């Protein structure tokens, strides 16, 4: 496991490259695109675990943080969708350079899937894990979660107010610029620019009310397979806000599919 900074020196991005334990024939390479906001925190451990599992086999793995998130440079309030899309492109290049494999896979989680899908890139396989395709609904969900959180007597002894700065809004502890929120709200990748030879939907039991939108988008995709699993907690329930999402069984299923392909 090799953590390092990539991209420009002015705006370095944090990435972690996992080399495969089994090298030789049948090597694969997969880029893990994380979600953003509180989803990132909840899925961080799962992503690392998946990366470890995959690289214990024959898979090169690259994980990274978008600009303004995690250990990458910048503040989230300065981030925008275009920058994040570029980050995905750069991370993909990093993976290709590290692995020597030109046709990579991408696995993207929640809003990360929407981001990855909107990048003009060709991959071998695209894994969408509980993808968020309806940006408007997604923003409404996290706004509601934020409001409910502020009014939760188990969290705060007195009710908190929604903090709004000029040009920015805080949601679940993350500062989003108004532009970013609007861009997320407008996310609706009916025409995916990402192309893949094979698509996978990793669908946990309760993946929010995005199903209708997802259904219509995914219906347009040939060669879609679904990997189902039980999810320990819903993405949009307040009591699960701080619970790490670590569905071992589903992760193992996904791992098997990735390594066998």
């Amino acid at each position: 496991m090799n953590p390092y900074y990539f991209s420009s020196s002015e705006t370095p991005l944090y990435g972690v490259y996992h080399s495969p334990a089994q090298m030789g024939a049948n090597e694969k390479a997969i880029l893990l695109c994380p979600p953003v906001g509180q989803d990132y925190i909840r899925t961080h451990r799962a992503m690392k675990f998946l990366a470890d599992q995959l690289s214990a086999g024959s898979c090169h793995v690259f994980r990274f943080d978008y600009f303004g998130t995690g250990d990458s440079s910048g503040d989230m309030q300065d981030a925008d969708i275009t920058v994040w899309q570029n980050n995905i492109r750069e991370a993909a290049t990093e993976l290709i350079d590290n692995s020597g494999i030109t046709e990579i896979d991408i696995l993207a989680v929640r809003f990360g899937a929407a981001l990855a899908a909107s990048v003009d890139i060709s991959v071998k396989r695209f894994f969408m894990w509980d993808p968020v395709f309806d940006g408007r609904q997604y923003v409404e969900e996290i706004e509601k979660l934020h409001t409910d959180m502020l009014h939760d007597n188990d969290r705060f002894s007195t009710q908190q107010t929604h903090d709004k700065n000029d040009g920015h809004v805080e949601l679940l502890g993350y500062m989003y610029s108004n532009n970013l929120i609007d861009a997320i709200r407008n996310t609706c990748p009916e025409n995916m620019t990402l192309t893949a030879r094979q698509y996978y939907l990793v669908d946990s039991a309760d993946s929010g009310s995005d199903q209708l939108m997802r259904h219509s988008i995914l219906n347009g995709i040939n060669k879609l397979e679904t990997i189902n699993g039980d999810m320990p907690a819903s993405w949009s329930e307040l009591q699960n806000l701080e619970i790490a999402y670590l569905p071992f069984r589903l992760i193992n299923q996904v791992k098997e599919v990735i390594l066998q392909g």
Partner: protein
Amino acid sequence: MSSKKSDNVEAIYPLSPLQEGMLYHSISDPSSAVYLEQYICHFRGPFRPECLKAAWENALQRHDVLRTLVMWKRKDKPLQVVRKTVSLPWTEIDLSDRPNADQQAEFNNLIEADRQKGFELTTAPLMRFSVVKFSDQHYGFLLSFHHLILDGWSSAMLYKEVYSDYEKILNGETVQIEKSQPYKRYISWLQAQDKEKAREFWTQQLSGLQAATQLDIYNPQPVTSSNENERFTKIEELLSPELSDNLYALSRKLNITVNSIIQAGWSILLARYTSSNDVVFGTVVSGRPVDLPGSQEMLGLFINTVPVRTQITESSPVASYIKDIHQQQLDIRDYEYSPLVDIHGWSEVPRTQNLFENLVVFEYASDEEEQGFADVAITDEDSFELTNFPLVLGVCPSKQLLFRLYYDLALYDHHAAKQLITHLQTILASFAENPDQILSDVTLLTETEMNTQIVGWNETRQSFDEQNTFVALFEAQAKRQPEKTAVIFNDEKISYQTLSAESDRFANYLSETGVEKGSLVGVCLARSSSMMVALLGILKAGCAYLPLDPDYPAERIHYILDDANVTTVVTDDESANLVQGKSFSLINLSENPAQNNEASYEPNDRAIGGDDIAYVIYTSGSTGKPKGVVVPHRSVANFIQAMAQTPGISESDTLLAVTTLSFDISVLELFLPLCFGATVDIASRETLTDGIKLSQRIEASNITIMQATPATWRLLLSSQWPGKRDLKVLCGGEALSKELADALLSNIGELWNMYGPTETTVWSLTEKISADKDILIGKPIANTSLYVLDPLHRPLPVGVPGELYIAGAGVTKGYLDRDTLTKERFIDNPFSDSHAIMYRTGDLVRYRTDGSIEYLNRLDNQVKIRGYRIELGEIESRLMEIDEIRLAVVSAFRISAEDVRLVGYYQLQDGTSLTVTVIRNHLKKVLPAYMIPQNFMEIKKIPLTPNGKVDRKKLPSPFSNVSLSNSEPPETAMEKKIAAIWQELIGIQNVGRHDNFFELGGHSLLSMQTIIRIRDETGYQLDLRTIAMEDLQTIAHLCEVHNENPDQAQDMEQKGLMNRLKQVFMKPGSRNL
């Protein structure tokens, strides 16, 4: 112990470390004959078995060690127990009624069966006797004992005493049985020694030694049996009377022991065979302390095995070197009691490796030969003992010295053993002949070997005309068959006549535009038939071509042009942008300059001789900049004509050219066919990078020969290429694996392995590959000589690795404008007048017995990736051009035979930061893609050796999956308990569940204590054999096995895992007692 048994106890005390080690080996593999000693002889004359029996009974009463057993079960530490009385295990067998032939056979069976029995160490005595009657006047005698109780010195004294008693008993005399000095006194003496002083001594002796001296000699058929009797054997050689006398004379002259001379000789042998000046081997010392009164007469196990480490200065005189060895032996005496396991721990050699791999043992000789006793003659003496070292030199001192070399057939064959003995004698003879000579002049090889290797195997003379350039050869073909197709490119076919005429015209054009004879002309062209015209035209104009790969970054191309002082570059529309803006004239072939300028078709009148330059090809440079190899026509002419013989080409052949011009092997592809009336079919650039297209191209064309690197052949095979049954395949540029060779052989006509550095003109060795043979690089081509030498340019024996040097017609003129570097690599040939210069390749190879060469490895930091030669130093230099980088190192990791990956390590300047993207972008501007490391790792501080060089071994690998391996803490209660025990016994903190017991610092003796503690504290019934299993040396696996199968010890036997255990015990780490 029952009360009866406890009454029969005279003493209980600990074991010596050497005894503990023997115990460990014996109980971990009870069926092994290691440490079972057998003494066999024949008694001829009026032998009385009952007298001998009585004499031995006296001996048992007299000496405590003969009444000793060992207890270790249910004990924290093993103990030896001396019984007051024991019964003599005595067997008599009468074979006198059997035919003579059967008698010996039965005796041999008895000996073998006895060896298989081993010893039950908890029962005394640890010895037994068999007397076999062949006739009234002829008996056979077998004495078996466990080495744990007696060493050679002791047994010699014991036999003498027994025979003396025999005589007394026979004569009816009274025999006094006085108790001898108890062995316990020695154990007490051992325990009183100053361990700290011993530690200081041995630490200093072994300072800087990082690994055992490994003798690596080619073994064609290693024996893999787990039965030691099948694996271990010996050869004996009696030194000539002359040599023996000379060595004794030398010992007297220098006032030292013969042992010192032999050890000195052995150390030089090791040094020469390993090309190392720092060697270590083991020796067995008597171990009898001078300051322990009576130790010389005590019976027991006193011997110890200690390391002898020498650092050789080649300029030292032989005499002073031998004296130094002698002095070292004297110095060691004060600390020779130190347990080897401790000595090992005080050294820097990891516990998972042996401290040494071979032994020199001066075998004890009594003052007088025991020829007999009481009119009974002792004849046909023999002994059996099994050592766990793969190579042991036993030296038997007598009027004629006798060498016994015991060796493990898994590592050495008879040829190697014989060779070692022979070379040792050569060295010793050289010592004796002139002890004033310096060590570097000491002879290793025999005269016959020198003759064979230097002369016989280099008889490659062919009478090629060195002045007959390959251009002339081409012209001869053009005259002979002008209409024949010379070149094919896509759909275009060019005849010999056309090619000749157009190249003449281009040559004239060059002359007319002022390109002088002898100039270097850059060639930056797309692959095409025009490229052939240009190349031949340049050559005919008396110039040399310098290929510039269009795939190189612009900066690299410009560097080469500047460095080579090129004033003219031939290019085309496709590549012209790469060579713009510099101070040279451009000739753009796309503009048809020769035609437009109406250059003449008349043959160019510039004469080309063998010494004129044909081409200059740039290769990666270790100091950061690429360097140009200057190749003269004579070398190319020899090469081309040699290739026509082997692998061979004829005018009916068509060769598909797939290699870029900037790789010198393209010379074979482009010019060999043209010199012998064949056809060259040039594959386009698009075809070369796509396996499917290349496969289709081969199918579609009528080619009969193709040359490519292993990477390209792999690309084809992975693209489902079906092969071509009549195709002659030439493979070179990097090592050819057996796996690739087999895959190719099943689908093609012939496979040839080609080897050669650019500096000796394309290929210098060839080998036709077949499925049933090893992959070798073969033998020299015509007019080429090879030498396998050590760092001082001394020839090395067959089977021993050394650096390959190449001499002969292929040796080029060196590096363009790099006189110093040229002098370093192109050196005087001390072995030949006709081939006065030889090139040191930097390749590690060895001779096979038939003179073929086997490639082993590189000696330096040059690697091959996909056939491209890369100097890691060049990449490092480029990395350090980045301001933020303070120090950079590039390492190559070999993932598989054809998969080598580069990793760049960098240490930043203080207070700076840098992203990998910036590094990659910089390298992309200055290096070709194949030279850019795939992975980069920032290192806080790049590790350095004490000499200030980069310690590459300590660089972390980016390919280790740290998160799943070491340092994961124990999880379950059982794991935590075992970890706590390991921590306490090994003396470390934080034992992880995947940490290896031996790698943490555990060793064989500790493992016994560990097992006992685990058993007592957890109830886990561990067998000693368990912890030796490779899979069970981590806590995690240990517990897994326990959870799956508590009776795993029994299962192990049933599953036949004992054999595997024996292999584990033969592994390093478990031998050092």
